[in-house]
């Protein structure tokens, strides 16, 4: 399945990119499996598994782990620091 991944703020610097589209194996059905998959390819992705990281799936802030479907956009967000 095809997933668009976004890295926000400090995670963008850490991952060295802001967005990528991945064609994932069918065994990956949620965000937890996705981060494990990403970490296997790039140790820097360990940061995505930190408990403080929040997820935005298709323009909605969601709890972890979240189920993924083809066509989804999933953004990894460091803790928010607005205001």
């Amino acid at each position, binding site marked *: 399945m095809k997933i668009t991944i976004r890295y926000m*703020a400090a995670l963008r610097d850490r991952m060295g990119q802001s967005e990528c589209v991945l064609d994932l194996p069918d065994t990956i059905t949620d965000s937890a499996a996705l981060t494990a998959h990403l970490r296997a390819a790039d140790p820097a992705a360990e940061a995505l598994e930190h408990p403080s990281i929040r997820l935005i799936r298709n323009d909605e802030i969601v709890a972890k782990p979240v189920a993924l479907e083809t066509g989804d956009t999933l953004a990894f*967000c460091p803790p928010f*620091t607005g205001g």
Partner: protein
Amino acid sequence: MARITVTVSSFPIACGDLLDRLAGDDADCGGVASFTGQVRAEPGLVALELEHYPGVTEDALTRIARSAADQWSLHQAIIHHRVGRMELGEVIVFVAASAPHRRAALDATAYMIDMLKTDAPFWKRVHTQAGSHWVEARDTDREAAAFWTDTLASEDA
């Protein structure tokens, strides 16, 4: 039904004008409270830059304002947040609430500013004379938000 106004914009925020829209707007309101957050000068700090998640940010702020309006029976709630680059002393965020009684307006304002720090997708980057870095989330902000979540939950119970 409360009137909710949420704006995210890269333009400077006209706090006084926004306050005047609430004050004197509605004779059913006894009180209007506001909070203005601005870039505080710190040693070496040159400017602040705010990134956000367009669309999601506005939804999150609307949810916070709506929740404040429901909880404190507000007549109006305003959240206006700036994004992009801001110089020292410039306004980052303006929050205001009007209500029949003063305590409701003041508490709702404190709630909105506390919640938006932890629940809306903004990220601060500081530009200093030595370089740039992202701001880390502060425990005190999480505790402030948790205070409201706990308080409101126990009042519901």
